[in-house]
């Protein structure tokens, strides 16, 4: 690899352009290191978002050479073999400035999918026993590690084509709650995700699971929601 990386960064809001920078190559350098170098040494007006730097907080996702990725856990050597990097904000979201995407609609859709735990008991009740190998617990486990980075949302074709679609992360969250035996909000949740823009809008392209940095499979969660909502509809438990 060359001693200098040729880095193209998106500058501006929705209207803007890619601006080129030369960044020295370092050992074990991550894409976030590159962006930070530009901000600290070349142009302090560059805006971007990060917090933990270790793949726990979900705030540093950007589009790196055309793919949505966590920049903190993406080594430059893995994605820029020819010494070139193009880094932009996440797709499918409005741009605030430079590399910072506006995540509001992403989190509003999380609420729209009723991704909030609805307790069925009070603190006076005994703690519910949940067997680790029970089917609902295993189903919830498969999706529960999501950290809301927005990578799946940025990768999703259906989000791109259908602005009201709730998206893979919100629906994956809904699926974990549908499988939470302590939760009391399923009728409301299943009703919300059965409406237009809910789980049935998914085309199962599987870009979400292809791009998820945690190797989760939101498509499988959404398939589970499609089955569960169809059953609830046929039983008359929900009305679209």
């Amino acid at each position: 690899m060359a001693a200098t990386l040729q880095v193209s960064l998106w500058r501006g809001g929705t209207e803007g352009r890619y601006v080129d920078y030369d960044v020295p190559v370092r050992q074990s350098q991550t894409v976030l290191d590159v962006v930070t170098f530009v901000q600290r040494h070349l142009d302090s007006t560059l805006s971007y978002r990060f917090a933990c730097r270790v793949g726990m907080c979900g705030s540093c996702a950007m589009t790196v050479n055309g793919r949505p990725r966590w920049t903190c856990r993406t080594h430059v050597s893995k994605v820029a073999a020819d010494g070139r990097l193009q880094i932009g904000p996440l797709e499918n979201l409005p741009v605030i400035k430079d590399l910072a995407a506006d995540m509001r609609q992403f989190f509003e859709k999380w609420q729209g999918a009723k991704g909030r735990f609805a307790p069925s008991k009070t603190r006076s009740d005994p703690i519910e026993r949940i067997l680790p190998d029970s089917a609902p617990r295993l189903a919830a486990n498969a999706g529960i590690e999501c950290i809301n980075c927005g990578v799946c949302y940025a990768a999703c074709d259906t989000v791109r084509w259908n602005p009201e679609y709730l998206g893979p992360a919100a629906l994956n969250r809904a699926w974990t709650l549908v499988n939470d035996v302590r939760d009391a909000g399923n009728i409301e949740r299943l009703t919300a995700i059965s409406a237009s823009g809910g789980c049935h809008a998914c085309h199962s392209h599987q870009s979400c699971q292809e791009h998820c940095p945690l190797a989760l499979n939101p498509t499988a969660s959404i398939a589970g929601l499609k089955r569960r909502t169809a059953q609830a509809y046929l039983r008359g438990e929900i009305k679209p």
Partner: protein
Amino acid sequence: MNVRLYVWQRATAVLLLPLLLLHLLVIFYASRKGLSAADILARTRGSVAWALYYGVFVAAICVHASIGVRTVLAEWTPLPARAVNPAAILFGVLLAMLGFRAVIAVVLP
């Protein structure tokens, strides 16, 4: 698409699968046996079974395809949202007119 449209589309898909296979077998059989139009009409005219079979086939296709076209129109065309449902319904009605016209032509005695 909401759950109602989803259930209709999946249910008609399940119905269409065996009907479509039988339809293909009929085409295969008719062409392999070298049946003429007159031979085919002799079998289908006045037949309640063929009328039912292709009647259900056409009805299922109209429902299934118009729901699919509705999604295509909503996601891939600049058609305003309020025009999507009428356009999809119109497409389904056109399919029904063409389909049932063909069924009537081959089964009416």
